[in-house]
């Protein structure tokens, strides 16, 4: 066969597909895909709505003309497809090349949508409908690439249902079975869920390895009043922790304020602060503090510190050339937050949609504009997670004299703390061993709690913690470790930020809540830079009550259950159960339906159907009790037709059977309106039970 012949044979239309269910499912899958793209911002609402309407109309047209395709239709559709491609090309050209994939995604979604809309006007055969189903996958993929939260599950479930019904309907069409059975759909759905879960568990987690896309967006564009100043929300408010306390917090956490006040812990809730996409979990660093005054940490000792410097020029902002493994984090702010740029370990470059950033010598980063909800920025960080063995072999810390003094400076000598630290680390031979020895001691002798009163003004946090009841929260525990290390001459600083948060494998995002705010210690190791140590992680909580612990764990487990999919699955199961129950209870034949309706009418009229009573006998009693209005069939006529068809071997035509059942049910409804009520003492359930048990056996139909 020649090439032209082969092409012609390959494009030969298949036989017309008559399955309405398959067509509806394919149309539904496409509509869900388009709606998902619109929900993720890839399509405008107008384009999406118009496309869905066009897809529905196109499939309707294709169904009507499936056996008689319009001549020249393919040519028209091909021209439309070429126009769609041309528009896509123009959009790409306007996006300054393809280095920015984010700029391509939108036009790509529009192109896919146009192709599907065009194609929907020429889907006469099963193969064409299969292509529509496959096309819906591409639309869902485009939307899924942008999805950040679990609400996208709604679209995934809706699409999966459409695709499942469509695929089973396709097999039903091939095999001539017709509509798929409920059991087939349930088994198919379970298979899909099991395999999908297995894939998600077995496949490697997604990674942010693409360097073509560094998402960034700004959620508020209010300039910070003072350069490198710190503000908490889009409105620029820095608010007090307690009225009249004199202590202030930024973003709800004292650790993000200018001074870190360790005397009091703010009450932090479970509200989502931001989501992070990263290749590995890290502490998300907001600020580091080097100056300890006995109760608060501050950032800068002005005389020894070069202070903040401004970096302009727009993204990307190159910050440092620190070595180590590179990790990319993208932060998606859900709540308005402080104008701190979070990062992991040491930030080397920042993709932030602003013209300037402020950076200090310790690597703290502040934006020049407010950070509203919806802000997105990407940070490339140097993450150097040295092993314990490597740190053990690291030489003793050697910094410049200025930095050594700055990072080991204490407000007063702390003789008791120094003695305690020296005693604990007496057998430690290197910095890392000293840190671990102190952490180990704290894990045994201190307890974690947030339920302590604020320290009085002037009280030293470390003295109160180590030589008081040794109960405190993360700022106090980490500060105590930092001060003990400084008494040993080890350069140390306090860091605040968030713990990684809970990882969602579906969205591939770490969800960080307000309660995840944390403080920890960073220790300088030559050759490895600042290494984080978290003593709080090793400290047990105060008096853990078994009941409270179990209850807390149970609540946490409940919180981990994805609400939307669970509710949807439960609703689907309930619906399936309801439908199956209705089907099992529905009368099997029109005659049985007539019998049930007449029995219901009799009971509503206060007439008890006797077990041995025939249907016609019961109908005669009904008519005697309540003669039918003019123009309405009486019960005897209905019963006569039902009995004759059931026992006389005369099958009822579909329309006749429907009419018969409809008349019987109308009669029952009429009795309901006429009836003064049930007999005293008879309950509804008893009546229903009597209905099913006392039904004349002969009237069950065949």
């Amino acid at each position, binding site marked *: 066969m020649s090439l032209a012949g082969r092409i012609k044979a390959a494009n030969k239309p298949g036989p017309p597909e008559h399955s309405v269910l398959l067509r509806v499912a394919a149309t539904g899958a496409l509509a869900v895909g388009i709606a998902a793209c619109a929900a993720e911002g890839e399509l405008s609402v107008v384009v999406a709505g118009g496309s869905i309407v066009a897809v529905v109309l196109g499939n309707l047209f294709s169904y009507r003309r499936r056996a008689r395709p319009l001549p020249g239709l393919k040519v028209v559709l091909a021209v439309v497809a070429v126009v769609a491609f041309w528009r896509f090309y123009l959009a790409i050209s306007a996006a300054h090349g393809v280095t920015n994939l984010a700029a391509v995604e939108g036009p790509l979604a529009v192109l896919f949508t146009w192709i599907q809309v065009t194609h929907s006007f020429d889907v006469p055969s099963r193969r064409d409908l299969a292509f529509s189903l496959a096309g819906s*996958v591409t639309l869902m993929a485009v939307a899924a690439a942008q999805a950040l939260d679990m609400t996208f599950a709604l679209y995934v479930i809706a699409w999966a249902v459409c695709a499942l019904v469509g695929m089973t309907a396709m*097999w039903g069409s*091939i095999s*001539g079975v017709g509509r798929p059975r409920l059991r087939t759909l349930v088994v198919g759905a379970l298979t899909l869920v099991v395999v999908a879960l297995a894939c998600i568990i077995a496949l490697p987690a997604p990674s942010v390895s693409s360097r073509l896309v560094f998402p960034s967006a700004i959620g508020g564009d209010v300039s910070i009043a003072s350069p490198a100043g710190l503000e908490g929300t889009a409105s620029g408010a820095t608010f007090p922790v307690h009225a009249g306390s004199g202590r202030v917090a930024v973003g709800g956490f004292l650790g993000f304020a200018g001074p870190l006040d360790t005397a009091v812990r703010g009450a932090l809730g479970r509200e989502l602060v931001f989501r992070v996409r990263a290749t590995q979990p890290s502490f998300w660093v907001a600020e580091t503090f080097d100056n300890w005054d006995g109760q608060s940490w501050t950032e800068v000792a002005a005389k020894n510190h070069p202070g903040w410097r401004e970096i302009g020029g727009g993204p990307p902002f190159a910050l440092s050339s620190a070595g180590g493994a590179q990790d990319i984090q993208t932060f998606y702010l859900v709540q308005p937050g402080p104008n701190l740029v979070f990062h992991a370990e040491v930030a080397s470059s920042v993709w932030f949609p602003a013209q300037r950033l402020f950076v200090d010598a310790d690597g703290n980063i502040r934006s020049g504009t407010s950070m509203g909800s919806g802000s997105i920025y990407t940070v490339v960080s140097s993450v150097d997670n040295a092993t314990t063995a490597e740190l053990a072999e690291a030489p003793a810390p050697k910094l410049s004299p200025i930095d050594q003094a700055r990072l080991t400076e204490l407000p007063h000598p702390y003789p008791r703390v120094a003695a305690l630290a020296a005693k604990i680390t007496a057998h430690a031979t290197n910095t890392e061993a000293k840190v671990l020895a102190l952490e180990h001691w704290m894990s045994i002798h201190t307890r974690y709690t947030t339920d302590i009163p604020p320290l009085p003004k002037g009280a030293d946090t470390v003295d109160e913690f180590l030589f008081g009841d040794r109960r405190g929260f993360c700022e106090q525990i980490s500060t105590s470790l930092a001060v003990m290390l400084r008494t040993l001459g080890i350069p140390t600083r306090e860091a605040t930020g968030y713990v990684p948060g809970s990882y969602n494998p579906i969205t591939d995002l770490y969800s960080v809540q307000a309660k995840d705010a944390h403080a920890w210690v960073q220790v300088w190791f030559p050759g490895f830079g600042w290494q984080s140590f978290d003593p709080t992680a090793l400290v047990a909580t105060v008096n853990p009550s078994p009941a409270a612990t179990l209850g807390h764990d149970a609540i946490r487990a409940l919180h981990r259950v994805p609400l939307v999919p669970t509710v949807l699955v439960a609703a689907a199961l309930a619906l399936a159960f309801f439908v199956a129950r209705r089907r099992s209870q529905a009368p099997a034949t029109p005659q049985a339906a007539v019998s049930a309706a007449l029995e219901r009418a009799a009971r509503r009229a206060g007439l008890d159907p006797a077990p041995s009573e025939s249907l016609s006998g019961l109908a005669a009693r009904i008519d005697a009790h309540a003669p039918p209005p003019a123009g309405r069939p009486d019960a005897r006529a209905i019963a006569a037709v039902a009995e004759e068809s059931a026992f006389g071997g005369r099958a009822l035509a579909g329309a006749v059977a429907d009419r018969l059942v409809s008349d019987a049910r109308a009669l029952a409804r009429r009795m309901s309106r006429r009836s003064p009520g049930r007999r005293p003492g008879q309950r509804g359930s008893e009546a229903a039970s009597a209905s099913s048990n006392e039904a004349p056996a002969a009237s069950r139909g065949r």
Partner: protein
Amino acid sequence: MRPRGGWPRPTKAFGPIAGSIVVLLGWTAVAHNSGSGWVQALGGLLAGFVVAGLVGPSIACARLRVSVESNPGDGTVGRRVAIGVRANGPLRIEPVVPPGPAEVLGPGVGRFAVVPTRRGPLGELTIVVASAAPFGILWWRKRVVVPLVRPLWVAPVAGPPDPGLLAGSTLGAILDRQVPRDARFGEPRGVRPYEAGDPRRLVHWPATAHRGELMVREAERPEAAVPEVWVLLPDDGPAGDLVAERALGTLLALLARSAPVMLATIERGGSCVEPVYSPTDAGRRLARAVANRGSTG
């Protein structure tokens, strides 16, 4: 006899499996590098469709049960024979022995056709049943041997008449002579009680009603001797079929002019020398005929 089946095997599996693997690997790579877990989750669902579509038919195929509901007792080589079957699920049936066109049947009772290629009795069929449930992506099939509800006697096709098969005379002489038909077409000479083996067309109903027992006409012997055809098959293979075809051609030619015709064959129980009255009789006898292996009877 119960149906016997083999293990399900995929049909033309390379394309669907290779295509699915490529798509899934590509999807995984994209999902892995795009950093979107939802893409991966969607890919998981896609994998679910692929796995269910590729593996599901093997389960459906293994669960398929097919039994013959009805079949005719007579057939002819090269002509379609309709077989009624009952299946517990939708399937595609492709007859292998004897061959026939493939048919897609729904669950319940359906029909398909076989075209016998060999003369002789058929007690069972070898068919290939296939299923692509639940999605129709890949067909899995298995070979099943199903017993017929009754033997199917496959007669040979009629070949050219062979004078050499006639005993005691030449075919030409027989064919040239107008042999009077037997007594069925004239007045019976008499009646006698029915004996086992009498053709049912000889039953004389008035006499039966009169006597109260089954009576048959006593045929008036023809003027001439009944022509006799002796069929000795050389083997049960194609050579034997060729001889049977010629024998049937000869018998049909004789039956067109005179009936009955005495036919001598060898069957599994021994030799059989009995008259045949119709082409159907002749076909059945020749379907039962086997090669002479020294049996006597």
